């Protein structure tokens, strides 16, 4: 199987380049379960200078997000047999490259932190826990599952253009996760914070985020619900 991988080592290279690799992988039943990450680790045995992030290798930690044949995804849950050859691998777009497939996610996490992704409730905590009805809890489905891999935000042209001002789909999904939480008391402050031409309204609903999310979440829908709440509050 043929691979073309983006290589860049800031210590030795003046510019990034694409390097070709070939692996002996037969397309039969034994490779049906093989994922792209397995192939990358085999390549790393050939050439240990190739750098990438990985951890849980089962789509839970979100470390091995990368651009696979032009589309962001997690290498560990992308089956090899679904990929067209040569498999072109690049780092996540729109973020500074540290080395090879590793990007600097500082800006991504800065935006994530800016939405205060934690429960704000100033009442004294009850003896046991803050309760929700099953219906109230159901509102959080599709919001809390985000693993912060960065696939959605780095596929968003609005984030590429305004990474310092536009929160991006991952951050906005988390913003809505706390707006939708009945135990949170800072809803108005959260909406105030997003009521801005850049932070929320740079989203022009092109849905790249929904297209790439490896957990099949829907940040566009969450952004729409934030807008709904803002409209309800205004009229």
């Amino acid at each position, binding site marked *: 199987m043929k691979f073309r991988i983006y290589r860049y080592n800031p210590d030795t290279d003046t510019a990034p380049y694409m390097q070709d690799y070939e692996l002996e992988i037969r397309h039969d039943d034994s490779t049906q379960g093989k994922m792209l990450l397995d192939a990358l680790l085999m390549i790393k045995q050939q050439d240990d200078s190739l750098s990438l992030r990985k951890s849980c290798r089962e789509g839970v930690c979100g470390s091995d997000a990368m651009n696979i044949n032009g589309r962001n995804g997690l290498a560990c849950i992308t089956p090899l047999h679904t990929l067209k050859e040569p498999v072109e691998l690049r780092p996540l777009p729109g973020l500074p490259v540290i080395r090879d497939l590793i990007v600097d996610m500082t800006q991504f996490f800065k935006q994530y932190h800016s939405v205060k992704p934690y429960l704000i409730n100033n009442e004294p905590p009850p003896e046991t826990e803050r309760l929700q009805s099953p219906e109230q809890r159901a509102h959080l489905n599709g919001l809390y599952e985000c693993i912060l891999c960065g696939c959605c935000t780095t596929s968003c042209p609005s984030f590429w253009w305004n990474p310092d001002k536009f929160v991006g789909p991952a951050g906005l999904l988390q913003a809505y996760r706390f707006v939708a939480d009945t135990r949170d008391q800072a809803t108005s402050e959260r909406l105030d914070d997003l009521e*801005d*031409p850049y932070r929320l309204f740079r989203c022009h609903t092109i849905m790249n985020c929904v297209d790439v999310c490896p957990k099949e979440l829907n940040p566009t829908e969450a952004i729409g619900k934030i807008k709904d709440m*803002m409209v309800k509050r205004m009229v």
Partner: protein
Amino acid sequence: MVSRVVVGAHYGLRDWLIQRITAVLMVLYIFAMTGYLLMQPVLGYDVWTALFSSLVVRTFTLLFLLALFYHAWVGVRDIVMDYVNSAAIRLVIHVLVILALIIYSIWSVEILWGM
């Protein structure tokens, strides 16, 4: 990199909502107008003058044009915000666009009621 980015202009929702409302207004006007014009067997000078002599048509045409201008203001401002980095130049462009749109509005009234 600047560590502190100042955001929070608090007009995001208003302009976003107005852009949607003006879009609906424009679509309705375009459908109504196209429908009426397609129904005319002959489209001549008489049909056009008869159409625009009606106060209702003039009013809704003006409403359509004002909706178009506001819609364009939000869109053009978004583009300028994306591509012009200097705040001073951005402000100058914004003022010029606003002035142009106000002049277009006055001009539209003159065209519609000056016939």
